[in-house]
């Protein structure tokens, strides 16, 4: 994640803009969500559920620019009523099926009105999980036009809007306006405040009348109320999603961030270039990411797998969101296992999502199915332990979840719910999917091991192997050599360091295991944990640790020129 991304979370995840509408619209929201997922395909080739989300996120800044039917929520609502119903039925059916196996009586009424069902489950959920206070979901809106056909991120679209970071907490909106007015007419402006304390959160947004004002602003440094502030162009999320990102590996350690960016600018307009630096040393870690304003640029740069840069052959790979990679595997499974009742899964695979960055990880139907099963087991267990009937709760929770997460594709539920829209959606999706897959046929994972990753996916699409790989730091046995700072000089951090927290984990791991006789198991945790902690311990001190352990180090070893 680059800092810009985080800025955009600020922009589009801004609670104060969304909460106002949310409260009243709780119910509609849910239904909208359902509607969007179910009828998405019929409305536009771009409206996968994910597109909806992205579009929504962009909405707050684009409301006035894009003509959407968002003003008449109510009509949408009614039109989608039946579909929502369908949808709910489906879930209920699905859950009932599961639960019935355990002889649990389903209370989920297939004909229950969706709104009612929703409210009921809210209440019960609140009862059962005391900490769990449901927050209404965010406002759901449609924006079919948002999915544009243009391949290039249109940076000019919202170019009048700026993100202003680094503000003095004392800076007022008036002061901000005064300051920026010299660059042009400020038509909108807001400093984000902490909702509890009312205190400024140190950033805000500002919209100029003319894009040229933004150009002027970004040219120079700005100081306001004694603080260097950080104005940036606000690029709408949806535009971001049309960008293309690559991974660059094997970069020489002597390459500096600026050079890195300049070098990659030859293939297209760069939105963001990130050379990964070591947190502690500030040195290049030999890889980085470049985000272009268009997939074209990515195609261009990716024509070469290796490029000469400062005397080294650097490796270029597309960096794709994980679901893109999974998609290929899943698709093959779907094609092969026609018996799988998973038409929704195809929708999930709508290739239009490929361009989306803000996808929701929970969209993995397989994972969701497994999750459901786990949940069910959990409740069953609870039932055994407490003698209470949790089946209803479970069911409602599932239902709730599907409601609350618009864009969720519930596993299995596609049986019927998806089918009405499938007719129009699937072929379209299929086409897109193919073309997309073609263009990304050489898609590889970030961080290497692409082949095994893909192989895993293909071999067993239902397992999350690929994803599990991302849990990079789970203990998995011996680690590589310790970091070079420790390595090159003989001299250990003495017991002092050992007493420190850094080493605690390994004891913990071990204690956790309890069973010391299981040697391999113990090893596994002991070493993994230990090396990690050791390193962690070193890093702990941040800048200070070198000095500290330097003092503590008992340097008995031979060194020809230690002072």
């Amino acid at each position: 994640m680059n800092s810009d991304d985080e800025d955009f979370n600020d922009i589009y995840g801004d609670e104060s803009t969304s909460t106002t509408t949310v409260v009243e619209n709780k119910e509609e929201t849910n239904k909208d969500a359902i509607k969007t997922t179910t009828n998405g395909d019929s409305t536009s080739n771009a409206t996968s559920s994910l597109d909806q989300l992205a579009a929504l996120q962009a909405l707050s800044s684009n409301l006035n620019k894009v003509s959407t039917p968002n003003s008449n929520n109510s009509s949408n609502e009614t039109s989608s009523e039946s579909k929502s119903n369908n949808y709910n039925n489906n879930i209920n059916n699905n859950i009932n099926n599961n639960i019935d196996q355990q002889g649990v009586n389903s209370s989920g009424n297939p004909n229950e009105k969706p709104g009612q069902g929703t409210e009921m489950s809210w209440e019960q959920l609140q009862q059962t999980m005391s900490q769990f206070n449901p927050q209404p979901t965010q406002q759901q809106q449609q924006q079919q036009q948002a999915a544009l056909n243009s391949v290039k991120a249109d940076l000019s679209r919202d170019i009048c809007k700026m993100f202003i970071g680094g503000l003095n907490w004392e800076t007022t909106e008036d002061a901000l306006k005064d300051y920026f007015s010299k660059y042009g007419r400020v038509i909108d402006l807001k400093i984000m405040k902490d909702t509890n304390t009312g205190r400024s959160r140190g950033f805000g947004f500002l919209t100029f009348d003319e894009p040229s004002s933004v150009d002027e602003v970004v040219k120079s440094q700005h100081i306001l109320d004694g603080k260097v502030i950080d104005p940036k162009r606000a690029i709408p999320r949806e535009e971001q999603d049309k960008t293309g990102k690559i991974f660059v590996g094997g970069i020489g350690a002597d390459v500096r961030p600026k050079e890195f960016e300049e070098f990659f600018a030859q293939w297209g307009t760069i939105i963001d270039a990130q050379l990964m630096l070591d947190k502690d040393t500030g040195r290049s870690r030999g890889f980085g990411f470049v985000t272009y304003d268009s997939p074209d640029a990515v195609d261009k740069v990716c024509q070469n797998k290796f490029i000469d840069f400062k005397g080294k052959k650097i490796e270029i790979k597309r960096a794709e969101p994980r679901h893109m990679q999974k998609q290929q595997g899943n698709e093959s499974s779907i094609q092969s296992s026609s018996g799988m009742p998973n038409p929704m899964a195809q929708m999930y695979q709508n290739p239009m999502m490929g361009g989306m960055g803000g996808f929701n990880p929970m969209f993995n139907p397989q994972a969701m199915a497994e999750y459901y099963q786990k949940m069910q087991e959990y409740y069953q267990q609870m039932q055994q332990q407490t003698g209470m009937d949790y089946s209803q709760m479970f069911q409602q929770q599932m239902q709730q979840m599907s409601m609350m997460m618009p864009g969720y594709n519930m596993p299995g539920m596609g049986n019927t719910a998806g089918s009405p829209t499938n007719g129009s959606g699937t072929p379209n999706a299929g086409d897109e999917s193919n073309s997309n897959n073609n263009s990304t046929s050489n898609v590889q994972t970030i961080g290497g091991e692409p082949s095994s990753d893909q192989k895993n996916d293909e071999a067993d699409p239902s397992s999350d192997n690929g994803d599990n790989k991302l849990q990079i730091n789970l203990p998995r046995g011996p680690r590589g050599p310790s970091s070079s700072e420790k390595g090159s000089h003989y001299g250990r951090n003495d017991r002092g360091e050992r007493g420190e927290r850094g080493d605690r984990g390994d004891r913990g791991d071990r204690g956790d295991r309890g069973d010391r006789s299981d040697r391999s198991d113990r090893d596994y945790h002991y070493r993994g944990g230990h090396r990690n902690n050791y390193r962690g311990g070193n890093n702990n001190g941040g800048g200070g640790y070198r000095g500290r352990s330097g003092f503590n180090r008992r340097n008995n070893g031979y060194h020809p020129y230690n002072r």
Partner: protein
Amino acid sequence: MSSWQPNGEYLLHVATLLKNSMSPNQEERSQAMEALKTFQLQSEFLNYLCYILIEGETNELLKSHLSLLDLQNNRATAGLLLKNTMLEEGSLTKGTHDIQYVKSNIIHGLYNSSNALVSNVTGIVITTLFSTYYRQHREDPQGIEMLSQLLELASNGNESSIKALSKIMEDSAQFFQLKWSGDIKPMDMLVSVFIRLTGDPASSPVIKSEAIKCLNNIVPLQSQSFIVKIDDFLNIIFNLAQSDENDLVRAQICVSFATILEFRPDKLIDHLSGIIHFMLHLIGSVLEEKVAIEACEFLHAFATNSQIPQHIVQPYVKDVVPVLLAKMVYNEETILALEVSNEDDAFEEDKDEDIRPVAPRIVKKRDGDADSEDEDADDSEVDTQWNLRKCSASTLDVLTNLLPGDVVNVAIPFLREHLTSERWYIREATVLALGAMAEGGVKYFDDQLPALVPFLVQQLKDSWAPVRKITCWTLSRFSPWILMDHTEFLIPVLEPIVNTLMDRKKDVQEAAISAVAVFIENCDSELIETLLYKELLSSFSKCFELYKKKNLIILYDAVGRLAEKCELDDMAMQTILPHLIAKWSSLSDNDKELWPLLECLSYVATSLGERFMPMAPEVYNRAYMILRQCVELDERSHQDPNIVVPEKDFVITSLDLIDGLVQGLGPQSEQLLFPQGNKNTLILNILIKCLHDPVHEVRQSAFALLGDIVYFHEPRLLANSLPEFLKLIAIEMVHNDDSDGVSALVNAIWCLGLIGERINLTDYIVDLSRLILDLFTTTSQILDKSVTENLAITIGRLGMTLPEVFSSGPFASDSVWSKWCLSVNDLESLEEKSSAYMGFIKIVNLTGYNVSITDETLKSILEGLAVNVDVTIFAQDIYALLMKYSDKIQILRLSQEAIALLQQFSSN
């Protein structure tokens, strides 16, 4: 004032005691010392000492009673005792002593003796007077007066005076920027005089060099008084650099340039070429090594100064590197010394004085450089002194890190030419240079390493011990390269080094065992276990038989590292442990050699785990005895000053060994520490005493042991002492301002978390949580990262059972949550991070909507949960969180790990 006159009888008495205190007769000496001690309480004692220092050879009474030699010696003795008494805490500031006479007359000692010792001692007394008295009594007009006198004497060529001034500057320069009596800031005057003396052709070399030395102590202050004259000073220095060939002066010029380079590089940047060539000229030509070292130090500073950009340094590489390489050859005397001592010595016992004292664990602040210089001077051993060779190698090292490509390009052709030199010391220096460049430059000559490495391995068989020795080191410097990218070299390199462990030359053994330790440290556990484990064990076993004291210490270290790296098994039991136990039995409880051995045993016990059980009772009992004895002696010494307190290292290492046993044996260690269960918790009482120790390292180890006891043993054992332990933890948290005590603080906080996980802290939580949160949310203090990290973990651990404490108040805030995530998200321990998050998620869920969580914070939470957290143990809490914020979550742009988390979570 100076009207003070000594009482004759009393004077004579003191003088006789002084004479006797230097008597060759031991008894007479200690009697005199005792008597002087009682005199020390007299308010006029210092005046008497000073009188003897100044008038000791002129006073008629003294002359009539003592010989001329005794009179002379007495003056110096009186002066030193005067200095020591003044340094004793508070003797001057408390005002118990009359020092009128000292203040008025001490200056005469600088010139009224032909005896250089007397003038030097006087200089030291004056320096001490400034550093103890005048610093704090700047309003005393005599301070300024004495300063003027000193400057005047120096201007008139008095070398003792300028030497005294340079010592004063070293100790107290910053105080002269303040106002002294009569609102005078002495700095202006001082700078002017020093610069004048430096530039005055009439000044003697000593005056010049000492005046420059004075200024060198002023430069770092960036004092306005100096800055306005810096150009004058530089002009003079440049002139002297060209004209003055005196070694003292030149050495100080080098120091000047290095100091100005550090503080005002802008002033030198235009003259760098000239300065560097001046330095290179000195290094290459000067006979006095001290000057060459200072010149080389300039180059070192030049290469390490972060304000000087690479491209400024780069043009000089081609000139500097060859000089450095040339000076890395041992100097002629050393070569001769090494050549006559090349024969095998492995069977000779080490003399105690050959062994560098085991570095004490406790960080001692050095309380004066003057003393340590003497130590260095005494140390005549070939390789322990800082010298030109070391300085050159160190400079090559840092320069290679800065400009690896350039250095390698210059150095490699040069080195290749000399690698096979017939003269061993050239080969030796070449190998040293390769090792020095290894860290920074390996990438730039790694294409040559496949050929170089076999060559180096060959050098392990060189007939010259120094070549074998340096080769061990250099090969170990390539260990990262070998272990990362070229494991095919691991065995071919390590095997010969392991063979070298048994070298017949102790020096070579030392380097070999050090190199093996480096390899162990850098190596994957897996590699060690599959490839090296057995071989290392059997070699170590042989080493135990062959090695003498000095190398044994390093061997212990290597064994400790091996134990730390991989789990020791039965083979280790049979090969290594008997040696350790035998050694352990042969040493007495107060032998300092126990320290490294206890340390090593601690690692070994941890690593052997249950297998150590048969030895455990004996080992534990002895460690416990040592610990108890030390703690008791320490306690009794508070009442009885005659008790000699053993070094705290005994306490620390025995605590650590017990801790090692607890870690290794886990719950089984309970029967060792608490043989009678609840009935005997003596060890806890001792622990409490250790936790009261003012030495941070003792508390650090004690908290570590406490934590492990909490972790592995029955919580009820703590029942009685719990309030005391919690109090001590609280005290540690309150006294958090000593940066040297960070490790103790960290361990205390860590302990608290473990206690909270196991024992209900409801009764204490209010106060404890306040302390934790005060520290965690402090804005007035910069905490060490490890402190915040542990605070965060402990908050999480306490939150597991008492989340409500944190769901309101200072912790209920988005920014604090965000800080919390930031503090733990890099944690690499699964268990810690899991329990931290477990409590934290409970807290967050319980806080509800009292805090509106920002997207960033939510994102950090998810991303934190994504890595190194066992989410299965609190899946329902996470689920509740996810549900609660589902609307927010889906609009977040999450990291791949967080996405994987959600998927992983759902597949759990």
